[in-house]
Each structure stands twice: as C-alpha cells, then as structure tokens.
C-alpha cells in the first residue's frame, strides 16, 4: 500500500504483517494487583494485537496470584512478540503458550436463553439433552441452558438454537490447562 506512494525504499514502509495467521492459547500467571489487567489489555490495544478471548481470576488467594487465559490470533512473529512483551511485564510471573507446548484442555461456559412454545420448545430441550446442556431456569415460555465445552461446541449449540427462539447469550470466554502431570509454575 505504501511502497509506491513513497519516494524512498525505506524499511519503514515494508509491511511484514501480511503472513499466515495462527490462533494461540496463552496461560499467564501474574500478580493480582490493581492495574495489572489494564496493563495487559493496554499492551494488546496499544500494539494492535488481537484478543479473541480473555478470562482472568485469582487462582491462589494467599499469594494474590491471578491466572489469565488469552486466546489471540496473529502471524508467528506477532505471536512471539506478544509472548515476549507479556513476559517482560513487571507483575507477570510466567507466560506459557499452551498451543505450542502440546495437548491442552480448553473449556468455556455459556448460558443461553431460548423463548418459545410448542414444538420448538420440545426440540430445544431435546437438542440441549444431546449437548448435555442443563436447564438452569425454566418458565412457561422460556428456558436458560447452561452448557460447558470447547468453544466450537458452544458455537454449534448456539447456531442450532437460533431458529428455535434464541434471544440472549452470555459466555465466559476460554479457560485452559495443559493435559498430563506437568504444572505451570507461578
């Protein structure tokens, strides 16, 4: 876009961002202090990185340590930068790229509200059963289903519910952990 508009062939104008993009799931252990979340989000916003999903909660209350699960998309060099940028942050203890390190579990929880009556209502219940979604709230003309699983399973459930009267969705975002005995050190 730029090279032809600029008189010089300066490296300033070479666009290296148009490479193949990959999705990675990162686990980040950080101090639970005020401003840490803002700093991590600010890194993504300021440097133009993508956040597909971000979840955070304190995991070790005595040590005030939080675990972030971040799903991000970018070229291999951008992913490498993201990890390096996260790892050099003062309150960050460690960064693990679960996608690179091998097998991991990724789960998300969704609550899905469906309105309707008659056949559609029966069909919604039947599909919920097939997906092992639980009914956590029921009224004469609505259900709230609770569903846990991989993000694509939740996507699929939601798309099936659309014609059956889906009106509202709330999702937690992904929490992830590596399979096997290995432990991510704080």
């Amino acid at each position, binding site marked *: *876009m*730029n090279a032809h*508009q600029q008189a010089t062939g300066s490296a*300033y*104008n070479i*666009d*290296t*961002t148009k490479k193949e993009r990959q999705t990675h799931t990162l686990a980040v252990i950080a101090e639970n202090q005020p401003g840490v979340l803002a700093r991590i989000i*600010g890194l993504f*916003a*300021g*440097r*133009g*990185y993508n956040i597909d999903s971000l979840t955070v909660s304190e995991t070790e209350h005595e040590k005030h340590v939080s675990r972030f699960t971040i799903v991000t998309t970018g070229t291999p060099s951008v992913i490498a*930068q993201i990890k390096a940028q996260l790892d050099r942050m003062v309150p960050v203890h460690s960064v693990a790229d679960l996608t690179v390190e091998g097998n991991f579990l990724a789960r998300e929880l969704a609550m899905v509200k469906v309105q309707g009556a008659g056949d559609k209502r029966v069909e919604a219940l039947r599909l919920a059963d097939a997906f092992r979604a639980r009914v956590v709230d029921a009224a004469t003309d609505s259900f709230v289903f609770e569903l846990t699983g991989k993000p694509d399973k939740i996507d699929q459930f939601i798309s099936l519910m659309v014609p059956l009267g889906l009106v509202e969705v709330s999702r937690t975002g992904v929490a992830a952990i590596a399979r096997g005995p290995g432990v991510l050190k704080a």
Partner: protein
Amino acid sequence: MADEEMMTGAEMVLRALADQGVQHVFGYPGGAVLPIYDEFFQQEKVKHILVRHEQGATHMAEGYARSTGKCGVALATSGPGATNCVTGLTDAMLDSIPMVLLTGQVPTHLIGNDAFQECDTVGITRPCTKQNWLVRDVNDLARTIHEAFYVATSGRPGPVVVDIPKDVQFAKGKYTGPKGVTVKSYQPRTAPDAHAIEAAVALIATAKKPVLYTGGGVINSGPEASKLLREFVALSGIPITSTLMGLGAYPASGKEWLGMLGMHGMYEANMAMHDCDVMICVGARFDDRITGRLDAFSPGSKKIHIDIDPSSINKTVRVDIPVVADVGQALAAMLAEWKKRKVKLDETALSAWKRQIDSWRAVDCLKYRASKEVIMPQHAIQRLYDLTKDRDTYITTEVGQHQMWAAQFYRFEEPNRWMTSGGLGTMGYGLPAAVGVQAAHPKSLVIDIAGDASVQMTMQEFSTAIQYRLPIKIFILNNHYMGMVRQWQQLLHGNRLSESYSDSLPDFVKLAEAFGGKGIRCSRVADLDAAIMEMINTPGPVIFDCEVANLANCFPMIPSGKAHNEMLLGADISDEEVGTAIDAKGKQLV
C-alpha cells in the same frame, strides 16, 4: 454526489475541518503528519498557526474555544508531538473545554513495533480525553473526524483525539460529509425533567436565605444561558456567587453579586453559602476548592443541582433536587415555571438575609496594606482593571497568587472574557491561551495576567505571537517567588521556603526585545498608570514586568481542612496566625 468524493486521507482531514467551519488550527509539523501539512500548503480555507511546543497548541485551542464558544483544534505529529499534548488535554478535560486534537501515527503495519516516533497515543490519552480513536481505514477517517467534533461539543464538552497513521493519510478513500453524523451510543440529555423543574421552583419559593452558586457550565452552555441567568436573578432577587470558571456569567457590577466563592473567594460569598437555606447550584460541580471541609459544607441548606453530566450529581455533595439538563434549557424552564406560578419570595426574610450579607460585606475581606513605594500586586490588578474596563478586553491567567488576585480584583461583566486553568491548575496556560484568544479576536485587547514563574513554562509561545502579529500583552506580577508555593510553605511548613524562590530570573524586558516584541518594566507606584497605558497603546506584543511587593500573600483564604465560616482574613494577620492556621489533618490535604 459532493458528499461521496474520492480523495486521500490527508485531503479528507482538511476537507473535514473546512466542513466543520474550522478557521484556525494550532499545530506543529513532523514526520507522521507531513501529508496533512502538504494539504495545508495547498489550500486557504483553514489557517494554520505554527506553535513552538505542542503544549502551547493545546492551550491556544483552549483559549480559542473558551473565548468563542466554538471547538478548538490542534494538530501534532506522532510520539513526542502527541505526548506533549497530554497536559493540555487533561486541562481541557477538567475544565470541560471542547477540543479536537489530530495526531499523526506511524504507518499501521508498524504500530506496536516501537517504530521511530511511535507511542501508544490512544492508550496514553485515554484517561485525559472524553473519547479517542485510532483510524486504521481511510474510509472511516472523515466520519471519525465528524464524530470527534460531535463528541467534543455535545453534552458536557471535552477534548477528543483522532490518531491517524501515515499510510491512512496517503491512502485514497471515500469522503463522507458532516451531515447527519452522530454517535448512537452518545446522546446526552439536554432537556430538563418537568417534575424536577417544578420541584426546584417549589423549593426556591419557600426559601428565606437562598443563594445561587454558578459555574463554568453556564459559560459552556452559551451566551443565552448567561442572559437567562441574569433574568432569573433580576426576577427572583436571589444573591449570586460563582466559581472561578463561571466568572462573567453574571456581571460583577450586578446588584446581587457576591463575588467569587471558594478557597480564595469572598468572605460574604462563603458565609452566604454556609448559612443559606436553599442552594441552587447551576453548572458547577462542588469541587474541593469550593466546598472546603465537606462535613461542614453548608450544613443547613436544601440543595438543587443543575448539571448536564449525571455523574457530577451526588458525587461529593448529596443534593435534594437533581436536574440533569443543559443549563440554558433548565434556566428557561425554571423561568417559565416561576412566571406561571407567579412566585414571590418572602420579602421580609429576603431583606433580612441581604442585611446579613451586607454585614459580612462590611468586613471588606479584600483589604490589604497599601503602599506608596512598592507596588502591591492587588493594586496593580486594580489599576489594570480601571484602565482596561472600558475596552474590548479578554483576560487569561497562569496559575498561582496572581491568578487569584486577578479573579478577586478584575471585575468581569460578560461571559467568555476570562480564560483560566481551574481544575488542573496548569502553570504556563495563560500565555498560549492568550495567543489563541487573540487569533479569534484580532482587534481586541488580550492580556495574560502572569506570574514570574508560570510565564517561563511556555515563554517560547511569545515567538508565535510575534510571527502572527498577535498583539498579546503579558502582564507579569513579578515577586521573584512561586508565590502560592511560598504561601503554603508559610502556612504548612514553618516558613521553610524550599525551592520556591525564583533565582536567576531573566531580564523580561530584554527577553521581550530578543523575541522582537516590546518590554516595559515598572517598579514604582507613581509610574504604574503611565506604564500600563504605554502597554495598551503599543500595537504589538508586550511583556510588562511589574515589580511587585515580594512577600504579599493572597487572602482571604479557607485553610485546608476548614469550613466556609472559618476563613482567614488577610489585612491584619500576624505571622504566627499564618503559621498555625492549618492543623495536622489539614496539612495532608492539597
């Protein structure tokens, strides 16, 4: 379709500014805004004023906005250009000044790479803007700029930033005109709730000791709001005071005028606030400089608060009747309701209240020890006022003692004539603000009342005034101290004057001459009037070095941690009283 032309991003910037009716842009070029500067070169609709430091550009835009009621516009390059604007943005944020700042950014593919002159402009400016945007696609650019003007000027005004990467400035796209551009998620309420207006008028009708407490919101609402305010005061006979930001909305010569309130406000204004039974707050926000000790703030009153920003209501002071609305619209509705009900306040009670106020006024809280030899700073402002009051005059200030003396002794009759940094207290605001005011009003007399310390913070903008023949007058009350810092050291820190003496001051007369302007020095009372007249009659920019009494302090004052009825009066105060005026708890406050 004129509204859907193809052009480059840089062309869009200039076209959008012209379509928004912008006449002046205060800016400084650099690598990431060169395409925009190339467009400036090729057009004549929008005048560019080259500043000497980007902070100056933002304060000029503020002064321009404050004196015209229009949106101020500034332009800076990426990196240091953008970071230099942070003080001005924060200043505009705290004083609710409409400003659009355009910044250049490194090309989109380099964002996040620590490229030359890259900084995370939207990240850095997020807490000091109403809203900001990084434009990644040229087809969004024109619309974003129009949205920026809408956001800056709607509801409670404030500063916004549009960050434009260099490749977006070069790229071609479709231009969208300003017509119909709005922001769906931001539609601030401006019309008052009818029930709230009825309740407010009903409460005022029962008042025996009412007071109007007005602020910068009246100025921001436009000249019509000031007119309505004056009509309301004339109709109701309610005494009126104002914050620093609201001076001029009601004339200082007006019958019901109490003077400014707050930390260095008038004794009668603060006592009236403390003892009133109904307080009508119009476009002010109960700032800590106004309230003093919160738990003793106007303990016996019912309070009405008119504000366009719902988050200002019940923020620090609980109010009985909130009215979320534009000040002008709320005042119009109150006037209509007042006339409909034919409200008449209890005349006996009101005249007793005014007699009480007169007895406070008799204290003469601005009294100071006059001198025949040295110029007292208060006297200098009084003379400046007397010699400029019949002219078309605008006043800006820096921050410190001189600012408070200007607010106390210069009397404002009209809105938009007084530009000062209230919320942020930015030393260095006044000189560039004066340049901005003068750009908007080339034939008027624009005076920056300054201090010797503040003025050095943005001194280089005097060069901008020279370049564009903007004949601003810098009236320095030179006491060789950061006077307000010294005053607080006397109050709080046993008179240990740590680093508050202005050593190695420049020769301001020679400095003015070095820039190509005129310098005037005056150190004797007898010469003052003639020297001020010489300043006024000089056609170009002037620096006036007014050598004043070095150790004068600014009174009256509500010491930190004290209430409105515990003011320190100045005239006959002893050093010991000054040294013990603030207790241990108050010392921790700012």
